[in-house]
């Protein structure tokens, strides 16, 4: 995934290239709201859908065009776990640290991921393949400890199995 590292461009300056294309698309999302109130969450959701995360230049564009203070956007984006300001991997690993999973060794799974892949919670592998999140409960305590990768739920995971579980993911 390419990263967006430019400053927020002025509307008339949005040019060619990946960043330009993305900003044009975000601009369209904003324009589609027609200046109506209460459209912010939708815009954030669609913008994140386009790039996978919400980097500062994107937030600045949204702030300027919807006339919502940048600080408020930071507050909202940080409040909802769905939103992220850092890029996520192609596959998002979720390790459950709810009571049951924690007791059954969820923390050990985290330790192993750190040791083997250098992955820490909220982090991403250098190749952009995996990113890691911790969650409170995935609703399958009978299978704890649980590790979800995208929509796949892996049950009763032992630290030694992690390598094999990850290997099929491209």
């Amino acid at each position, binding site marked *: 995934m390419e990263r967006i590292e430019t400053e927020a461009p002025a509307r008339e300056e949005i040019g060619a290239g990946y960043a330009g294309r993305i900003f044009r698309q975000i601009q369209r999302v904003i324009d589609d709201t027609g200046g109506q109130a209460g459209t912010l969450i939708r815009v954030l959701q669609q913008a994140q859908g386009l790039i996978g995360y919400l980097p*500062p230049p994107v937030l600045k564009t949204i702030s300027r065009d919807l*006339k919502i*203070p*940048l*600080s*408020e956007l*930071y*507050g909202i984006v*940080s*409040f909802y776990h769905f939103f992220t300001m850092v890029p996520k991997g192609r596959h998002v690993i979720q390790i459950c640290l709810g009571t049951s999973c924690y007791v059954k060794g969820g923390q050990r799974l985290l330790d192993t991921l750190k040791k083997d892949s250098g992955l820490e919670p909220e982090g991403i592998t250098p190749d952009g393949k995996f990113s890691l999140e911790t969650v409170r409960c995935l609703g399958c305590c009978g299978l704890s400890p649980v590790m979800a990768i995208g929509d796949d739920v892996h049950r009763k995971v032992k630290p030694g199995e992690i390598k094999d579980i990850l290997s099929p993911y491209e």
Partner: protein
Amino acid sequence: MGKVSLTIDGTKVEGREGATVLETAQDAGIYIPNLCGDPDLEPYGGCRLCLVEIENVDGLPASCTTPVAEGMVVRTEARRVNEVRRHVVELLLSDHPDNCLTCPKNQHCELQRIAAYVGIDQQRFKKLERPALIDSSNPFFVRDSSKCILCGKCVRVCDEVQGVAALEVFNDGPSSKIVTVDDRPIVESVCESCGQCVAKCPTGALMPKDFRWPAKEVKTICPYCGVGCGIYLAVRGNEVVGIRGDLESPVSKGSLCVKGQFGFEFINHPERLTSPLIRRNGKLSEATWDEALGFIAGRLAEYKGDKVAVISSAKCTNEENYLIQKFARAVLATNNIDHCARLCHAPTVAGLAQSFGSGAMTNSIDEISGAACILAIGTNTTATHPVIGLKIKKAVRDGAKLIVANPREIDLCRIGHLWLRHRPGSDVALLMGMMRVIIDAGLADSSFIEERCENFDAFKQSLEPFDLDFVERVTAVPAEQVAEAARLYATNKPATILYAMGITQHTHGTDNVLATANLAMLTGNIGKPSTGVNPLRGQNNVQGACDMGALPNVYTGYQRVDDPKVEEKFETAWQCSLNTSPGLTLTEIFQAAYEKKVKALYLVGENPMLSDPEATHIDEALKKLEFLVVQDVFLSETAQLAHVVLPAATFAEKDGIFTNTERRVQRVRRALEPKGDSKPDWWITCQIAKRLGGQGFDFEHPSQIMAEIAELTPSYGGISYERLDDGGLQWPCPTKEHPGTPILHTEQFTRGKGRFLPLEYKPSLEQTDNDYPLILTTERSLYHFHTGTVTRRVKGLNVLKGEELVEMNPVDAKALGIADGQRVKVVSRRGEVTARVKITPVSPPGVISMTFHFAESPTNILTNPAVDPIAKIPELKVCAVRVEKAPPVED
């Protein structure tokens, strides 16, 4: 709005429909503990301390978010309510430090007070200290996150009231914290240092730096701009240690800007003048008052009549301005008296007097927030009149349409619905274009024009040339934007016009003012609440200095010197004979000094060396004077040239009256003894007058001077010190029973009928050419005031803005090969100034801007002294320049 009756703690209480239970209880004098509620802020429901029990309602609702209802039975002291409150406070204390005795907020902390009130006798929760992330980046205050209880007041006041939104609650749950964008130090954020977050913080999480609690507080008025915010000076010993916004002030309601909140260091500054100085052998050396006054009286006696001139001060009180003009006229026998209004709003006084009969704000400051449309033209309100800026922001939040007309992309453009970026000096074309659209679209208020106004047909004819093609060509504003502005202004009523020096500081400044008056009359937007033509005046008492007759052609209350009846009235009152021909204006005084026609000058509290156009010429003129007396609080650039310097007291050291921009006459109260041997200006002027044989200068207190003003001035006739204790009075206030006049021209205009004036477009006198291809426009920073005599002596303000920066568009910078921060030489037809460049799209291509706060780079060396033929105001907003790279400074 209807009334609702309910019962709180067994007492029958009447509440306003729509009010919350908390507000209603507070109004009834019933205390409900809370940490996040504030009358200035939207209900938040965050702290969970104001919970109450309400009959037939499940759970314990938060009283701050629950509206009152008929027949409601509320119990604020139910047992389970108190149990929950204790629990909440215990939780708050579990991650709050216990070092109250060494906390600067000790005994003034809301958390401490509420903990005591609810009665905390145990600590059942494990202590979890919030990390103490100290942010001391701001020069005026410190943030200490370990003391934060996340009530959100700082975040909310910054967003809801100030419209700045520097702070936000980041994350959720236990990891929540208050941050700036990207968690940068606050000084790097959009923070404007107004300190309202500090004022609202219930704990020690936000505290002023070097804080000391005062021994007493004295209610007075802020000495900076013309808004006239109410303040309390916090006094300890003979020193001001802090300032607090006055919540009762009808003008500011507790709000302040960075200068009003933190800019008090100058009062006790070591560089204050504390003794009279007399020039001996070329050097200023200390003298006694007796020596200095005797010397001045002896010298001034030689120049009585037209050889002497007096410059009064918009920083001084009404009483002082009254005495200074009385001294000039009755003792020195000259009408050569003027002050800095000549450089700011002389066209307002001249123009609005022609149109309406009265040259002042037609409406009140607080009404601005009730407007449906605001046209802000030639005013960078959030920088120059910050608290009026808040009223604009409130209006916009409540749905008002904001039209900003300004060549520069000022802060208001961020929230404006329409931004007209017109060329400097093209205001008449822009406004006339709008008016033609209004008439053509049938949006004019014909019954108002018919009943209340005159000369409409002549005016209408003068609109002929202003078709949208012409207007677009002259102003560079796209025709459809001009039409949209016209439609917005004419159809969203009430609509108000705010303007400042972008309108007045032109050789056609009076025409610009007349155009705004025409526009308001055309749409009937005058004489009603939240409408009007509202010149925002610059200095704290520039309105008062004009009202008091510190002008060459009028006595107090704009009574003309050439009117024989007026002459007779003042001759009788002052027991002397008076001159009936108007004297010289400020700009003319300096020209006359240059030509050696005026030989002596008594100058109070002004600094023309930095404030007046073509400063080099001013310097030469001052040096040609045979005798120059300067009365000031600091040894200003002008005072350094004087033969005698007299040390004046600051606003904190004297009693008196300021009149703010909305004509509100307000009391200034003495909080300190004058520093060293300095004296109030009124005392000094009286002493000089008496030594020159003047009669009627035996005053012991300014209130006696005010009584004399009231006798001689119809519009101030009903004003006395006793009546000013409660929020002040707006003139005209002709009798002791009169309640004052918040809105002018309600039934009829002061002059009878409102007069439409035909106008034509006149280009600015100074034009660009190949040698001087750029336009320089002067502006002001939020962080400094006027020539910086006072604000440059406040360390923190210099941290926030320490030097002049020439603002230049990236296009121009690229063409000239100039980099951001590079030193440049700005050259005009009159001189050159060196400063560093700030490259920013805020400045339009072809236009650069500079302030005039910095003596190191005196911008007014460059500006054009050509004046408006009627108001004699110089063309300070348009000056042709070129910019060259300058060698770096050698250290």
